[in-house]
């Protein structure tokens, strides 16, 4: 007799990408909300990267959280999961470039990823690892969805 916890492999196979996309979406939603609640603080964080002049930094400080919010929400929609995953791939690559430039320039600043706090969660190495994990997860979702679409499972 099968256990009540038994899940068919095909069900698991089609549910895992949704679960992973949901987790990545949740991280993006949290990051977006923390920035939207304190746009001035996030503007200071963008300024601290010293990659943009003041006015574009101010605009970016308003555009980026909206983009993260949209990507986070879209990852929860089954039909739009791949689009959301592509957005996460693009955003993660931009973030990794910006964080890498900080490391190369030897700047130890608060990354501003989750608000303006100075905790370890906002340190540059942790942010780099986090973005690497999110990028890997998004690529995995894209690959898995492609396989499932080809097999007409989803």
């Amino acid at each position, binding site marked *: 007799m099968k256990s009540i916890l038994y899940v068919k492999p095909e069900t698991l196979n089609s549910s895992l990408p949704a679960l992973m996309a949901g987790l990545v979406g949740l991280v993006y939603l949290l990051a977006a909300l923390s920035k939207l609640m304190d746009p001035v*603080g996030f503007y200071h964080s963008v300024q601290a990267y010293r990659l943009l002049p003041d006015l574009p930094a101010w605009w970016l400080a308003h555009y980026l959280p909206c983009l993260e919010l949209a990507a986070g929400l879209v990852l929860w929609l089954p039909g739009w999961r791949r689009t959301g995953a592509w957005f996460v791939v693009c955003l993660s690559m931009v973030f990794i470039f910006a964080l890498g430039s900080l490391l190369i320039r030897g700047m130890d600043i608060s990354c501003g990823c989750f608000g303006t706090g100075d905790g370890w969660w906002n340190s540059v190495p942790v942010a780099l690892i986090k973005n690497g994990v999110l990028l890997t997860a998004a690529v995995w979702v894209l690959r898995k969805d492609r396989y499932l679409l080809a097999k007409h499972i989803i």
Partner: protein
Amino acid sequence: MRINHFPPANPIYSLPFHLQVLYTQGMRVSSNPLIRFLLMGSITVFMSMIHLCLAGWTPPMEPSSSFEVTAQQAFKLSTSLLWVDARSEYDYQSRHIPGAIRLTKEDWDGMLAGFFQQYDGVKPVIVYCNPGCHSSHEIANRLREMGLESVYVLQGGYEAWAKR
């Protein structure tokens, strides 16, 4: 034989029916990945424009910039001032300005006694954190509210001091 009418023969269209049509037609129209990218891009630009309308199109002026000192100015006074580190315990343990004491908003009450043990009532106080953070301004404002007069914020945070 059952014929599926579109729109349905029933003149009283239900809300779920409308929602279903909207969803299926929307999904069909936007099945092209490029259209989806453009759609999402347009929506996010629109959202950020609303956000900018509410917050203002230009960056705000720094309200407390008159209380900021540069690393060079601080270095000249470094023998006769009190440094306050508003960063995390981890950052403080990694490296800090010699003689700096920690004072954070998270553990304000617990650390305030330690601050007043070091503060003689005369020395200027300079608060710093990491570049881009707000903690130093918040701590400086709290100290000013308590009646301390010579409280400043280090421009550029710890990095500016390390690179002076």
